[in-house]
Structure formats: structure tokens, C-alpha cells
């Protein structure tokens, strides 16, 4: 299974029909495919925090939303994820390109990359770190239902070596 197919098919089979994004080079092929998919509304956003608000509105309007972003966007979204998403129990799937992991060439990605899993733990949000496309597909496919049950966001961290 191809690493991009796994994410895209996982989102489709989870029923995701509304995506907001801030790009990462590792997500570019998936973002292009989302743009071409007539069953998915794709809204590029200026900053991830704004995307969390848009996802909440989309859920109010009957959609199943996900955000695609770099893990740096988690840092930009922490308050909204707590005082909007968790407070009102909005389900949300967060697909994160996890930069700053093994193989990272940009030094600026490393501090946030190292802290990302611990930030999610401190937020008391469940996350997956699939190492293969097969595992990513399964985790993403089940993530929406899990998020609905928990009333909290579910994150999928895709490290550099995943791609």
C-alpha cells in the first residue's frame, strides 16, 4: 500500500467529507487529491487555529471534518482544541505530518517535533503513530468513530520515515 493512498483511503473510509489544511510538503499529494474530490469540501486556511473553528462549524452543519497540517500547527491550535473542540465535544480527526523526527533536515522543526507527543499527552488527547501504510489506513479509518465516542480529537502522527 502506498503511503499517500493509505491516508486518503483511510479518510474516505472513515466518512470524512470536510477537510481544512495548512500544507506540508509531505502532505502535498494528498492535498491535491482532496482538491479534486467532489465528495470532500477542502478549505485551505491561513492558520491552523482558524481551521479548528471551521471544523467545529462544519460539524454543526452535519459534516465529518478533519484537519491536515504539520505538527507545528498543533502549537498554533492548543487553546481552540481545548476551549472549543473539547469543551463542546466536537469530534475531529487531526492528520499531522510529524516533522522534527528521524531524518529531519531542518533544524527549526526539531524542538516542536520532539515535544509534540508529550503535548498531546498533556492535553489528554489520544494519538496514533503508525509506522506503515497498512497501520495508518486502519488508524485513520477508525479515528472518526473513536473521536465521536470520546468527544475529543484523535491525532494521527506521520513521522518523516513513514513516507
Amino acid at each position, binding site marked *: 500500500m502506498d503511503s499517500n493512498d493509505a491516508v486518503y483511503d483511510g479518510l474516505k473510509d472513515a466518512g470524512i467529507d470536510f477537510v481544512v489544511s495548512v500544507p506540508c510538503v509531505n502532505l502535498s499529494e494528498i492535498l491535491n487529491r482532496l482538491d479534486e474530490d467532489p465528495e470532500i469540501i477542502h478549505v485551505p486556511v*491561513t492558520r491552523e487555529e482558524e481551521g479548528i473553528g471551521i471544523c467545529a462549524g462544519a460539524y*454543526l452543519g452535519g459534516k465529518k471534518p478533519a484537519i491536515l497540517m504539520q505538527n507545528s500547527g498543533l502549537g498554533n491550535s492548543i487553546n481552540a482544541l481545548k*476551549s472549543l473542540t473539547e469543551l463542546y465535544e466536537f469530534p475531529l480527526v487531526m492528520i499531522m505530518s510529524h516533522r522534527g523526527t528521524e531524518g529531519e533536515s531542518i533544524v527549526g522543526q526539531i524542538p516542536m517535533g520532539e515535544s509534540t507527543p508529550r503535548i498531546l499527552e498533556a492535553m489528554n488527547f489520544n494519538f496514533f503513530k503508525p509506522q506503515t501504510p497498512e497501520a495508518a489506513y486502519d488508524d485513520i479509518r477508525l479515528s472518526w468513530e473513536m473521536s465521536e465516542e470520546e468527544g475529543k480529537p484523535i491525532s494521527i502522527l506521520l513521522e518523516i520515515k513513514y513516507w
Partner: protein
Amino acid sequence: MARYKAIQDIMENIDEELVVCNIGFPSRELYEINDRSRNFYMIGSMGLASSIGLGLALSKPGDDIVVIDGDGSLLMNMGSLATVFANNPSNLTWIIIDNGAYGSTGNQDTYAQLIDLVETAKGVGFKNSFHYLDIDLKEVINSEDASFIVYETEPGNSKAPIIDIDPITIKERFMSSI
């Protein structure tokens, strides 16, 4: 006049529209003025009223969405001007109650006192960017582009109480009203 009267004026034009209201006193005042299941009250996440409204507008193209926002909150999420403009949902009407102050935290000045917000939105590209007192709100709600409206008021809060319904109930009754 202060925000309370502005919200009263706005709500006189509201029938079936879905309303998303800014955090703090704006939501408290709306709750006191005209509580309805088609109001979504923000209890947290300052700045995101227009983003919630945008997600809703894109998901429910058959419903009209009115966002009651504030100048301080707009300044916290200026990127939303670009995102709302670029997506241009015709069913979204975004009203800024501009009192030049962070009203819910003690009326500290905002930089909006120095900025013409109507011109700012025009500069971004909004075809519909108006002062509230120059327009008929209902006509603007029914127009064919996303709209940005600034209602200038004095600072000041009413004695509206804290909203006594919990966030999950706010969400559930809002969704069942759609």
C-alpha cells in the same frame, strides 16, 4: 449606545437565520435578549466566531448564517478575512460590533480605534463591506456574496448574567434546530 442595543437591533432582523455569537458579554447579552436554539454561544476560543460561521456556511449552503463578532476578536483572527473572502459563501453575514474595546475584560482599548474596518475588508476584496447604519440588514443577508458589516458602538457591558446552559446542550439544541 453600547453593544446591548446593537444586538437588539440585529436580532429584530433575525427569523430563521443561524446565529454564531462571540465569546463573553456578547453571548451573554444575546442570551438575555433573545435566547433561541438557533443561536450558538461561544464559551471559549476567542477569535473563532467567523471561522465557526464559515464552516457552518460551507456545510449548510441552504441556510443563512449570521456571525456576531467583535473588533478585538477580529484582530485576533485577521486571517479569517482572507479565508472568508476567498471562499465567499453567499449565505454568510459577518457583523462586527466595533466598540473599540476588549469589553468582556474591562474595556481596554483595541487597535480597532485606529483602523477603518469597513475599508480593511474592502481592501481584502469584500464586495459587501458596510457600516450597519447605512444598510438594511435583511437585504444584505439575502445578497449574493459573503458580507462584512461594522456596527460602531460605545464600549460598555450590560448586567446580562452568565449563560446557564452547558456547552454540550448549546451544541445539541443548535444541531437539532437545523
